[in-house]
């Protein structure tokens, strides 16, 4: 076959089908899997607007306050006339102050105050306290894979039918206490909301957004193969559509060479000598900080399908991802020593759903004497490896593949549960094997 893949057309067909099922279908639920950067937010906003415009009062459930505020802002941007309710908690500073500037957004801690508005948006936690006499005809549940089954149980009585949207490859929800006694039950309260929903309603229409608009052509195949083996996706742009160049030439150091490698290939691995280190490995932290400093110093310019002119690679287009908070804190400290203060440094959990031109990642297994389930969790690596539009640079100590091979695999198996794929161990090997092709040894 020589048919040329037309990403826009493919994505458009998927969206049309989703909206058709949502607006005109008979099923009580529609499930949409969205890989990183596939336009999930755009879909949610569009579905919300179409439902509202069709006269269906709508409730929207998101997982965090930041996600809720972000959705409110996006809705207002698309349709400033639309009456939107932001249901919030009674804590101090319950919502983004930017919402105060929006005329058509009403904010309240009481659902009754927002009755009758076209769209009411809040977090699952807040919705869990709301009682209604008459359920909403329609709901949209955003980030449904990051929502726990018990949270859905608390809110599902509020709506008759719903569109569930989420990314199955990101971090799974978790529970701070054991929940083994319910493993294998369809409604295991610690499972993801989508798992429970589909276990009880296997015939619901399931869709997939097939195109990542964020990930470049260099990243989509790797991320798709490693983390979405049974639901592959493509990049919306082709190999030549994005470019990253630097005005200042390389000084021959490791950081500069890895930056150049990543600029050309989309990936770079800056490898430090093998050593067991504490989590906040000073050398690795310094290496991360140096790479960031050089990224900003070398006058980077990114060209993309978005505009014909190159846009400068500024601090707000770069982010650093780590596994642990103390690592993020150490990187921030190292960056401020180098005079960099406005680059986002955060853990995988907090980087979910965000997008940058270039990301610098401290590999979760770098320097570790042991590999734990936390560090092997597929979602963590997936989030870290899929935040970028142009390039991702990974800083890591050598020896991680040996560590993986020595990692004992004595996981318990719960009967009746669906085996989750991909496996963290395999995904880590796949990513490392790919990164090895873009390896630059550390030389200060």
């Amino acid at each position, binding site marked *: 076959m020589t048919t040329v893949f037309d990403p826009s057309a493919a994505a458009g067909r998927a969206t049309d089908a989703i909206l058709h099922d949502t607006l005109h279908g008979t099923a009580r639920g529609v499930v949409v899997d969205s890989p990183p950067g596939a336009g999930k937010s755009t879909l949610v906003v569009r579905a919300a607007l179409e439902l509202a415009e069709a006269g269906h009062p709508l409730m929207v459930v998101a997982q965090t306050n930041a996600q809720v505020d972000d959705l409110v802002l996006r809705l207002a941007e698309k349709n400033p006339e639309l009456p939107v309710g932001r249901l919030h908690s009674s804590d101090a500073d319950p919502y983004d102050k930017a919402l105060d500037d929006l005329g058509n957004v009403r904010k309240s801690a009481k659902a009754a105050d927002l009755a009758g508005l076209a769209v009411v948006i809040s977090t699952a936690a807040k919705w869990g306290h709301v009682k209604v006499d008459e359920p909403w005809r329609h709901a949209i549940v955003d980030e449904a894979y990051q929502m726990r089954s018990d949270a859905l149980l608390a809110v599902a009585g509020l709506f008759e039918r719903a569109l569930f949207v989420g990314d199955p490859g990101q971090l799974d929800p978790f529970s701070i206490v054991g929940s*083994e006694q319910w*493993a*294998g039950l369809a409604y295991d309260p610690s499972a993801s909301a989508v798992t429970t929903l589909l276990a009880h309603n296997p015939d619901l229409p399931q869709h997939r957004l097939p195109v990542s608009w964020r990930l470049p052509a260099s990243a989509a195949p790797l991320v798709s193969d490693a983390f979405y083996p049974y639901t592959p996706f493509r990049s919306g742009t082709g190999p030549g559509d994005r470019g990253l160049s630097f005005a200042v030439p390389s000084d021959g150091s490791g950081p500069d060479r890895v930056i150049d490698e990543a600029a050309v290939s989309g990936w770079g691995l800056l490898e430090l000598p093998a*050593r*067991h*280190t*504490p*989590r*906040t*490995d*000073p050398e690795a932290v310094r290496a991360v900080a140096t790479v960031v400093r050089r990224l900003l110093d070398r006058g980077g310019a990114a060209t993309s399908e978005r505009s014909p002119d190159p846009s400068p690679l500024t601090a707000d287009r770069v982010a650093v991802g780590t596994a642990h908070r103390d690592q993020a804190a*150490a990187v921030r400290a190292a960056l401020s020593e180098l005079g960099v203060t406005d680059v986002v440094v955060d853990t995988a959990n907090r980087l979910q759903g965000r997008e940058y031109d270039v990301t610098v990642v401290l590999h979760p297994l770098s*320097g*570790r*004497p*042991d590999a*734990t389930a936390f560090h092997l969790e597929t979602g963590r690596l997936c989030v870290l490896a899929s935040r970028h539009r142009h390039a991702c640079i990974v800083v890591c100590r050598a020896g991680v593949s*040996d560590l993986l*091979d*020595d*990692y*004992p*695999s*004595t*996981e*318990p*198996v*719960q*009967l*009746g549960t*669906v*085996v989750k*794929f991909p*496996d963290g*161990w*395999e995904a880590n*090997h796949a990513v490392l094997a790919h990164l090895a092709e873009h390896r630059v040894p550390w030389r200060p």
Partner: protein
Amino acid sequence: MPLPRTRGTALRQRLAELRGPDVPAKALDARALAALAANPGCARRAILDGAGVNKADLASALGSPSVFGQSQFALTRGNAFEAKVKADGGAELLRLVHEKLDRAAEPPAEARVPDLTASGPQGRTARTELELREATERSGAWTLLDHPMLALDVAGSPAFLEPDAVVVHPDGSWTVVEIKSFPLLDGSADPAKVGAAARQAAVYVLALEEVAARLESSPRVRHRILLVCPRDFSNLPAASAVDIRKQRAVTARQLARLTRIEDIAEELPEGTCFSPELPGEELTAAVESVPAAYAPECLSTCELAFHCRTRSREAGAVTSLGRPVRAELGGLSTVEDVLAAARGETGDPSDPAVAALRRAAALRAEALEAACR
């Protein structure tokens, strides 16, 4: 990939020398497989299992006998249960395979249960392979292989494996059956035990895949195995399909790495031998010549664990207290190094591990003092 013949032969010869004169190679039993899963990075375990050394005998000869024993009650009960499951030509067993794994197929009204007896493991392996071939070619029928013998190429030498049963489906595909005596209570079972059974079954699947690859029809080896256990508090069989794709992938990789035993063998001093007949000192020296990666998990999986634990404790290794202990200690690996660093006697204060240790020591001292007041 199999090693070239000559190198393989040389290795086999070398491994035979390691076992000692006239010591037969021990099959890679369930415990050895569990030990592999629990500690794939241990060179000592790798070479001993690779060479087919009887680690229980070795442990006794070293003066730290293994503590694995089996109660005759458990044995009797296990055998009685397996016999019950396989009674009547495996009627119940095949019914379960049909119900849990292959409902689309014709129900097993009658099945072949070929005789697999032959002399020696090689003979039984050949016999098993023959029957597998025949059963696969005779499509449309069910066949139950009771205690077949499989060989798996481990680092160039065959390790023999004996699954409880293998079922050939009418479509020619194969299923591994594991019969265990822990109960399936209200549909769930001890996850640690199910995990061990899944890893064990994964090895059988890999061995079967080698056989299947040699057959012209290249039959499919199913990646969902059947686990049969007593139901609730009875000894009636209950079964559950277990997806072993993950365990298969991990074990395949670990077994592939076992080819490293060639490298380990090369490092050994000339004339090294693990025969339990040797004098204690000589034997201890031979064992010590291969590094171990002891961790407390070994205690429940490896016969040599008590020996290795003693050595690990004598060396002051922090991992003798558990693998996670190392997580925040960076490059420090012995008890004395860590304590000295915590007390401020050694260590570079700019190393975050050392700094954190000192903070931890100070906070701990402060809290204990506060509690005394």
